[in-house]
């Protein structure tokens, strides 16, 4: 049972445009959500997070939106840059801090110069 789903395995976006990566979850106990970026042969790198008490969190070019009623979150990257090409994972946890993370299957983002 996949509790966190990323339905788009891949996404291609022109450089300078907006990249939107989506994530859905089924477990109502999830209360805190994170996005990680992963390059080949490296571990995941933390990007941005959001608590369920918020519906938006912004950090530079990265914005995460949370729709708790729809159990849906999205990561917006604008403007997209070639260095953003990587696999992006969303993850969820029942609480802030170091509860175990449940990861989605990942979306491979390719930025086209």
């Amino acid at each position, binding site marked *: 049972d996949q509790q*966190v789903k990323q339905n788009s395995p891949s996404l291609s976006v022109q450089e300078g445009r907006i990249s939107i990566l989506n994530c859905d979850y089924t477990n109502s106990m999830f209360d*805190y959500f*994170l996005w*990680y970026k992963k390059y080949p*042969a*490296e*571990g*995941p*790198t*933390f990007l941005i*997070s959001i608590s369920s008490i918020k519906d938006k969190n912004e950090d530079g070019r990265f914005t995460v939106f949370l729709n708790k009623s729809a159990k849906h979150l999205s990561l917006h990257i604008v403007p997209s840059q070639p260095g953003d090409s990587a696999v992006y*994972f969303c*993850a969820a946890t029942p609480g*802030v*801090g*170091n509860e*175990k*993370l*449940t*990861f*989605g*299957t*990942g979306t491979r983002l390719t930025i086209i110069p």
Partner: protein
Amino acid sequence: SAVISQKPSRDICQRGTSLTIQCQVDSQVTMMFWYRQQPGQSLTLIATANQGSEATYESGFVIDKFPISRPNLTFSTLTVSNMSPEDSSIYLCSVGDRGSDTQYFGPGTRLTVL
């Protein structure tokens, strides 16, 4: 954020053997975790490494297959025992502190079992 190293970075092993993976952190951390990423799959939590006590394993993972040690707040090992080709994966450790809002991952160990 903590600097995390893993050894080895990659290995090719024969069926039936065991491999121990080390995770070293440059500062004391409360929480350490071990994850597995099978080819084309997501990251799956294997266990939480508890300092001074037995690890807490997730459903589907057992101590006999994945023994874990955590002798102090900066170091942990994961052993993959009696390996089979199905154990071919990337194994990652992650760390965090209570009250912090995220976990940080090591670079991973890419294991291939022939």
